[in-house]
């Protein structure tokens, strides 16, 4: 539209009135939000601080001096968790994608693989992670196979990867199935092969749709890497445990928990924001 219109316009008195009213309404809402927050958080804090055992809890769980002392050890343990999450995450992504594609394929030649993938998912999604860790961690070395590592970190990672690829495969598969058949029809009618349709049309939409649940799984993965501590890996949980059992002060656990939160919370926020931006960019209707 013309620049002239744009520069000639100045808000009418009614519009100015309306803006003032909108400002007033949003101030009112901010006030309500503040009062309700103070009430709720204040009540919770009061309940906590006035509870009979608070002093003891404070001394054994929130000992700041001791927390500072164990911080480097726990942080070093956390580095193990992060490495495990990173390498495990990459492996999980690749395996899970393969499983999801195998389970959704209709090609007759791949039928046995479809069965195998289904069986794999059934087993590893159904068994508790801690059992898989124990079985892999203690069972595989007992086989004494040539060339198979008996490093507990590697074995722990393998156990976590086995279980999580089953979870993630199911998330990806549900994303693939959620894409409307008309999309496939449109792609196939353009002459794309079934593989190309999957790669260029279905998967990009499906993956976008499953980003939030995948992030959920990623956060779970980071936390569950703490479980490999039962094999004797000195990760953040284990490091905290060693210190706590030495002094009977549980502050190291709190330190470990805070360190985990420092990673997971920003990650969640960032992804939420990324998803929102992309939704807005794709959707002209905007928010209602």
């Amino acid at each position, binding site marked *: 539209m013309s620049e002239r219109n744009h520069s000639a316009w100045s808000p009418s008195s*009614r519009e100015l009135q309306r803006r003032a*009213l909108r400002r007033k*309404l949003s101030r009112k809402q901010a006030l309500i939000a503040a009062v309700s927050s103070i009430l709720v958080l204040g009540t919770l804090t009061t309940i906590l601080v006035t509870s009979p055992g608070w002093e003891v809890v404070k001394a054994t769980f929130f000992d700041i001096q001791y927390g500072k002392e164990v911080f480097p050890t726990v942080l070093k343990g956390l580095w193990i968790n992060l490495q495990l999450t990173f390498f495990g995450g990459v492996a999980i992504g690749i395996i899970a994608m393969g499983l999801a594609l195998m389970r959704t394929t209709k090609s007759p030649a791949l039928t046995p693989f479809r069965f195998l993938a289904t069986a794999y998912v059934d087993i590893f999604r159904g068994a508790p992670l801690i059992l898989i860790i124990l079985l892999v961690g203690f069972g595989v070395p007992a086989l004494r196979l040539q060339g198979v590592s008996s490093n507990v970190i590697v074995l722990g990672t393998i156990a976590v990867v086995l279980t999580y690829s089953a979870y993630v495969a199911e998330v990806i598969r549900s994303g693939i199935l959620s894409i409307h058949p008309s999309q496939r029809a449109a792609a196939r009618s353009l002459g794309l092969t079934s593989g190309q349709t999957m790669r260029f049309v279905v998967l990009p939409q499906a993956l976008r749709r499953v980003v939030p649940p995948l992030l959920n799984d990623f956060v779970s993965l980071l936390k569950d890497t703490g479980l490999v501590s039962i094999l004797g890996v000195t990760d953040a949980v284990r490091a905290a445990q060693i210190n706590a059992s030495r002094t009977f002060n549980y502050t190291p656990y709190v330190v470990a928990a805070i360190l985990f939160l420092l990673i997971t919370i920003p990650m969640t926020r960032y992804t939420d924001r990324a998803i929102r931006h992309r939704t807005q960019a794709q959707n002209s209707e905007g928010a209602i």
Partner: protein
Amino acid sequence: MANVLELQNVRKAFGSEVVLNNLSLQVPEHTATVLIGASGSGKSTLLRCINLLETIDDGQIFLDGQEITDPSIKVDDVRRKLGMVFQSFNLFPHKTVLENITLAPVKVQDKSEDEAYEIATKLLSRFDLADKADQYPDRLSGGQQQRVAIIRSLAVNPRLLLLDEITSALDPVLVNEVLSIVRDLKLDGMTMVLATHEMGFATQVADEVCFLESGNILERGSAEQVLKNPTDPKTQEFLKRVHQAGRL
């Protein structure tokens, strides 16, 4: 006749692009106002502003004399009085035809299931869709889907019906079955604002035709006047192009 809808000096801009510029419009009760104009002339935005899907930047909109652009008004209450039908139908794919129609009467108007069911079946049989009641939208043709969408908006007995290019996604045969519903509604006395590219249809139902150009109404009047004897050169140019495209 009282105005059901009145727009006074409405302005809407997206960034530096002014989509509606100082636009005023009155829609008296029981009349149909047809908005014509090229794509991007602001027809859809106008309807979305009336439905409060967009917040206007200036001016006022009144529904039955009440200003609905007041920030403290309850948006849901306003929308309850308005029916809107979209170009792309927007039926809920996980609900059957009957469930699509009864959702708002039951959840918004607190009608009983039986009552809503009765309203829905009455409307469905009136518009020859009784046998589709238990089908899911994806099983219907485009024309049937759009007729269901119109029935869905009628089921809450709206004060004003907004129709946004409701036949643009349909083939000429299906267009007719949809437009015949609108003609029926016109005879019933429903107050309507329509954006359309169907000039022949506009001639049949319009009490007033408004030609939108660059966010303003450039020419308005009866269908006879605007579509047959336009005075503004831009209207003439637009209608000439429509005519060349074989749509008049």
